[in-house]
């Protein structure tokens, strides 16, 4: 059994230690907002927060998570997170939407670390998150919009 702290609650799951966190979240805990895209930390669709830092859950064995706080898209609650989600909705960023949980998780972590990012900061922080619909124009705009709202 592996003990985990997900979105503020303690969970105990019966999983092999090398099971990626992604599949524990999805298949054991039913938290399907975190998506599978590539399985090799190339696309970012599976991004969650580990103690506030973005983590590719497809490549993180559940045994390495330990007692740290895992936050998924379902558990976002900070002011920054809510502002980012609202900016995404206001600008209709999503098309197919499949990557957007991961995009939002990365954007929230960026704005927590750097409240007023430049375009270059955004490119650097978010280049690990692929959007095949190429909604990047609006992702950039939404990060700036959220940043402006948070610092207003």
């Amino acid at each position, binding site marked *: 059994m592996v003990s985990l702290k997900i979105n503020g609650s303690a969970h105990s799951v019966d999983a092999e230690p090398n099971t990626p966190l992604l*599949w524990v979240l*999805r298949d054991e805990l039913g938290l399907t907002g975190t998506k599978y*895209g590539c399985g090799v930390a190339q696309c970012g669709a599976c991004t969650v927060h580990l103690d506030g830092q973005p983590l590719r859950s497809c490549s993180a064995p559940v045994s390495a998570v330990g007692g740290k706080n895992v936050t*998924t898209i379902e558990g976002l609650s900070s002011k920054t997170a809510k502002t980012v989600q609202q900016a995404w909705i206001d600008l209709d960023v999503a098309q*197919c939407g499949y990557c957007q949980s991961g995009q939002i998780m990365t954007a929230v972590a960026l704005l927590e670390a750097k409240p007023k990012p430049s375009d270059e900061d955004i490119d*650097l922080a978010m280049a690990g998150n692929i959007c095949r619909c190429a909604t990047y*124009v609006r992702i950039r705009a939404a990060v700036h919009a959220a940043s402006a709202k948070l610092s207003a």
Partner: protein
Amino acid sequence: MRVLDPSSAVAIFAIPAQQPAGLNRRDFLKSSAAAGLVFGLQLPLAKKAFAADAVGEVPPGQFAPNAFIRIAPDNTVTLVIKHHEMGQGATTGLATILCEELDADLPAVKVEYAPSNAALYKNLAFGAQGTGGSTAIANSWEQLRKAGATGRAMLVSAAAKRWNVSPASITVSKGVVSSGSHKATFGELANDAATQPVPADVPLKDPKNFVLVGKKETRRLDSQAKCTGTAIYTIDVKLPGLLTAVIARPPAFGVKLVSFDAASAKAVKGVTDVVEVPEGVAIVATGMWPALQGRRALKIQWDGSAGKLNTAGLYSDYLKIAEAGVGAATITRDKNTAAQMKKAVTTVEAVYEFPYLAHAPMEPLNCVAWLHDGMLETWGAHQFPSFDHMFAAQAAGLPVEKVKLNSLISGGSFGRRANAASDFTVEAVNVAKAIGRPVPVRVQRTREDDMRAGWYRPLYVHTVKTGLDARGELLAWQHAIVGQSIMAGTPMAATVKNGNDASSTEGVWPTPYKIPAMSADLYSPVQDVRPLWWRSVGNTHTAYVMETMLDELATLARQDPVAYRLKLLADEPRMAGVIKLAADKAGWNTPMPAGKARGVASHFSFDTYVAQVAEVSLKPNGQPKVERVVVAVDCGVAVNPDQIAAQMEGCVGFALAAALYGELDIENGAVKQSNYHDFRVLRIDEMPKVEVYIADSQHAPTGVGEPGVPPLAPAVANALAKLTGTRVRRLPLARQKFQLA
């Protein structure tokens, strides 16, 4: 996919109907019509079914004026969406049209995806139920305006009766019906409205009274769910006892299974079944991770012989086919072409090469199948329900009326989820059948499975010879295209006329350019890998050839590329209009700073006109950097302007990924690329600034999901040619390093 003339749809979808067991021909026709397989001669029957039951599945007590609208007494307004949502915004677009005429409150409506029932939900451009060819809005525009207006008229007449007022005194806005001091919600009127006669002919709104159509303020309906992780895709479907399967698939095209030993796979904790299926060997488990571990442990033998397909040699093979000139199908033939070419003072000959491309949508292909109680249920991104329904029934060995498709949104498609064998649906049915227990199972592909499964945009080679007179005016155009036919050997084979598959040639012929003499041939070799449409289909390569060659000719003639095009478009005001609009907004006639150049391209596809101007510089490593793209689009009435802009932005990024990096190599039948590290797609740091301008138009609306793709690569290549002096005739661009001219 192509926009098809509805009147020819009957012939186009003439599928050799396989008769399900236990049914005679007559029963099959009846059940097919009821279940929605409206192919070929079955179309008249479908019309009958439509007349008999024009509303489909309606929960009891609800007001359903037609197949698209349900209003419950609790005031829930449900709209039935007949097209697949893959990100292109069809859900919002169709709901916008319905709500515009119904005067419902758009943000408050519920949407449901239509069941498989072609009699009610066929694509009017295809005659079958399916999404593609950028037709969702175009084929629904009139149909859904009428559907919405019909519902409104029945609510109004119910209110008029209840309040004893004249219908003319009644106004409807955002789901509320009023007259003087009287007021009622749609829900409050639902029961009465259901008893009103369905009006035969209803007036439609004057466009100047539109409150939703054409308004930037009209927003997507699915943003909330997609930004909170609550949108349900096939990968998220939960069912009691649901199992997950992955399939060990042949390592190369043309390779067959010899044998396998399931023992070590079955020893993996969580693995429940290891079964042979036509696609390979399925490892079924309680979750994805044990399934993957089981597949890793499986001992499996494939036949020793490698596959035969090698892309490296295919380019020269195809060139030889074009040069030999044997077995050509005629695309177009002007008998003056040769004579005109002889008059030419300058001729340009060029060979263009385009690689195989994978679609690589973010959600790898998947489908849930459950055989229970003598029936089959599927949950999947059924982009083409008419195919998926028929092929699922065949795979299950069930009559179509015993098969129920539950259609979900998808994490992208770009054409991949509409294919003429329903590969992702059929393999799930095969696994469910092989398990032999009534448990639901999801077959989930890994990224690598998805990348290597075939159904690619085919590899193409074009040869072109053009001739100019002394003033640089175009005299003649001789063209040959070599590449696999997408339509041949599929249920749409009837679209191939005398060997001419328009999905290989669209964009070369017909052309909006007035070319004095043009001849073009097509060769369609067959390969071990299945070909498929890929966002904008034939236009992915034809636009590149036409638009870069024209640009080259303008340069040779020392004429401005915009002016050169406009001269050839004297009879094409809408095409000329978007070129002028894009050039104007891009500041075409203003100088560029050193180290940067502009390129222009335009293309007509899916009844929509698009022109783009790209601004390109070079990165320190000699690779192109696209900094800004100005897009002008004329798609008729702009139903959701912000979504049109979104599609143009997305088309630019999607097309740029292919232009820069897209290439799939096959060696001895095996695909070399496997994941996003070696099949590169666009990332945010490579995304240019995009500006979108929508031409004012009163024409009926046309598609926007694909037409933004074709002009991008040639616009970028034309800018690169100006910047570096190098004309690129083989994609992708990143194969070579560039230097400033």
